[in-house]
């Protein structure tokens, strides 16, 4: 199973996902990223105010570091 890394782009900073997840394909990686975004934005008591999160994006990469997909939190 391929490994995808859900890195977070925060303005100029890239917050790397050091571990990655083994996921069947990119579609499933997208589904996981959307689930996480919904969870984070929907539980401000846990993750803090949505504002700073809405300025961030997921940059999903493969094991070579190639960016395959970008999902802005604000797009969800």
């Amino acid at each position, binding site marked *: 199973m391929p490994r995808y890394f859900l890195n977070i782009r*925060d303005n100029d900073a890239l917050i790397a996902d050091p*571990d990655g997840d083994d996921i069947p394909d990119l579609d499933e990686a997208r589904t996981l990223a959307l689930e996480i975004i919904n969870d984070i934005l929907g539980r401000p008591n846990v993750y803090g105010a949505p504002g700073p999160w809405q300025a961030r994006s997921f940059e999903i990469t493969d094991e070579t570091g190639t960016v395959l997909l970008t999902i802005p939190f604000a797009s969800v």
Partner: protein
Amino acid sequence: MSVPSQRFVRNTLLGALDLRDYEAVRAVAEPVSLARRDVLIAAGQPITHVHFLESGVVSEVTATPGGRRIEVNLTGREGFVGVPLLLDVDRTPYESFVQIEGEALRVEGVAFLRLIQAHDALRRCLSLYAYVAHLQTADTAISNGNHTLEERLARWLLMCHDRVPGDALPVTHAFLSTMLGVRRPGVTTAIHSLEGAGGIRARRSQVEVLDREKLKAAAGGSYGMPEREYRRLIGVAP
């Protein structure tokens, strides 16, 4: 491996006992290695032994209604695993498992009950610890409800740092996300922010503590009360 003389025991509670009480524990204790993920208390199953940790870290966890696991208590060499047996309780709905490998002195359940019946100062010392462990769980609940993820992470790292030798904590982001009951990107972002403040340096599968005072500041007052109570009641640093 053999059970050390009291001079060399690393468990803080055992080190604080009178020599006679320690020798009574020593006579029935058995040294064991704790490997990562070993289950010391299985949820709902009879508790067979108590473990006085010599090194390593054990987590007590419960499952949330959504099926996610979340930590309710953390024990290192300052404590023992098996508080229910002290309180005459034979099993618990929570699981205790090894999260950082180490060593322990374990005592079989029936032998433990005999020990605490015969040695009141030992029973008292362990009861004080049970009370401090309760405070820690209460503080974890308070911190889950009232502190930011970054503050909770800082508190957890300080508690883990208290319990391992050196400054490098062998924890992955996935592991921290389980302990704190949050999504991994939440942990990764909070680690990034604590790194930016100069409290820690993160590596793969490891977090290095650089500056405890900065971490304490980042914990926003969520860390320290059970540790102070431990010192006050048991008379030694945890």
